[in-house]
């Protein structure tokens, strides 16, 4: 059912070429089970390269599990998941995707810069070919607005800054797919707004595909080109909604009737779940 929603793909991402639309991630009939509990059931989705998806749903509907399935942290009990035509394991070994957790998960004894460099160090001695961003770790920290704080230890940074270090770390291996599990969930409103704008800019600049789990309806509408609504027990695709809002997004967009219409529609869907 979900694939039908993808037919009317029409959006305005600068990097997206509609004629040669490649698939970044493809889930076909994928299920995840924890013992006898079915966390996700029969998920079929096609996520195009360069797209920005946000994932919403009632708590316990398997939003995080879906990211874990795509990132090879949990196996599929049934069905199949492919990333850029590879198995999730092959994609993991090739560093095709990066993960940003709700908690920044920085190593406390490493400076901001050393934390960003960590992915480049892992596997280097074993001769693993590690792709790296065109930008140096230092430039990536500047990209997320942390120039001058390279040598700060995580405990010297605020929660928002730590999360930005985590984003820079996720970009350092030039991932094609960025998986974000409520990365701004623990931050205050102002910091969150700021980081939302910054993330949109990073997305437009790098052309990376983003899967972004959130529990905030306005955040989902503000960030996403598409909003995937999951429903609980078992986790299934409820609906995929195209967000047809201007590509250049500003905070003022939230006051517009179109924006609120999307929020209202999603709220209604969430209640039906």
């Amino acid at each position, binding site marked *: 059912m979900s694939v039908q929603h993808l037919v009317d793909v029409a959006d305005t991402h600068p990097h997206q070429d509609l004629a040669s639309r490649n698939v970044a991630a493809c889930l076909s009939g994928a299920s995840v089970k924890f013992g006898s509990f079915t966390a996700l059931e029969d998920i079929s989705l096609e996520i195009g390269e360069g797209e920005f998806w946000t994932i919403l749903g009632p708590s316990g509907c398997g939003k995080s599990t879906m990211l874990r399935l795509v990132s090879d942290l949990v196996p599929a009990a049934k069905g199949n998941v492919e990333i850029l035509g590879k198995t999730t394991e092959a994609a993991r070994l090739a560093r095709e995707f990066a993960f940003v957790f709700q908690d920044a998960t920085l*190593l406390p*004894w490493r400076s901001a810069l050393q934390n960003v460099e960590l992915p480049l160090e892992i*596997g280097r001695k074993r001769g693993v070919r590690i792709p790296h961003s065109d930008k140096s770790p230092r430039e990536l920290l500047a990209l997320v607005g942390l120039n001058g704080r390279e040598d700060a230890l*995580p405990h010297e940074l605020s929660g928002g800054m730590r999360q930005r270090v985590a984003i820079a770390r996720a970009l350092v291996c030039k991932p094609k797919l960025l998986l974000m599990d409520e990365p701004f969930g623990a931050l205050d409103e102002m910091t969150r707004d700021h980081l939302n704008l910054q993330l949109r800019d990073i997305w437009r600049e790098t052309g990376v595909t983003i899967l972004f789990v959130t529990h905030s309806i306005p955040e989902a509408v503000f960030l996403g080109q598409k909003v995937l609504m999951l429903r609980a027990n078992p986790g299934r695709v409820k609906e995929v909604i195209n967000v047809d809002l201007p590509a250049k997004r500003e905070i003022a967009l939230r006051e517009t009737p179109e924006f609120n219409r999307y929020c209202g529609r999603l709220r209604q869907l969430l209640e039906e779940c």
Partner: protein
Amino acid sequence: MSLAQISPDIEENKVDRLAEMRKRAGNVAIPLGTAISLLLIWQLGVRLFEVPTYIAPAPTDVLAVFKNEFPLLLRNFWPTLVESLSGFVVGNLAAILIAVAFVHSRTIEKAFFPIAVFINTIPILAIAPILVLIFGAGMTAKVVIAALICFFPTLVNMVRGLQSVSPQTLELARILSASKSEVFWKIRLPSSLPFLFSALKIAATTCVIGAIVGEWIGADVGLGALIIDSTFNFRSPLLYATVFVSSGLSVLLFTAVTVAEKLVIRW
């Protein structure tokens, strides 16, 4: 900014620094003053009630020993220092390596942890004679006793430290396809350091106790031997001086570990 605007800042800075210095001076003066007062009370008490020196010497008697018998104290200080330090190194190193093995394999942990607990439950005073019988009256027995007393707290803390990595950090390592040795060197080992240093602080004082207990059982040099010797000869001022030197040794080792911790752990 004009000069007139700057000068109040400087004034304020000066006041701040003065307050800071006064606070720091207070931090030293209060405990020091208390200690001196207690010594004075002790001195007065001993003199007032005419307590015989062999029962309780006055602080001045003890001070006189420090002045007159310093070479004797020093001669017995070095062996105890060497035994304590060697025991500290051996005991902690063994604990760290065994902790690594425990974290690496559940089977090894299941096999050896009960034995480690059992050894820890034997009172050190009970096991010391056995070790002296095995290793003889030389330094080895004392080093082994000091090592044994350090071993268990470090083992327990180190295991906890190596396991203190958050599940999310381990997921990050998996997404980066990190090998087992990379997880160990880059994540587990640094994570364990704060736990290790708490254990080392305990070990810094207990290793001295181990060495002294070892010297009680059978030795002719060392602070432990001097304690026994001066007790049996009713040389109470010497006994008290030796006790002060022993606790000074513990303080020295503890301070060394604390300084090392400050240098290593900046997070």
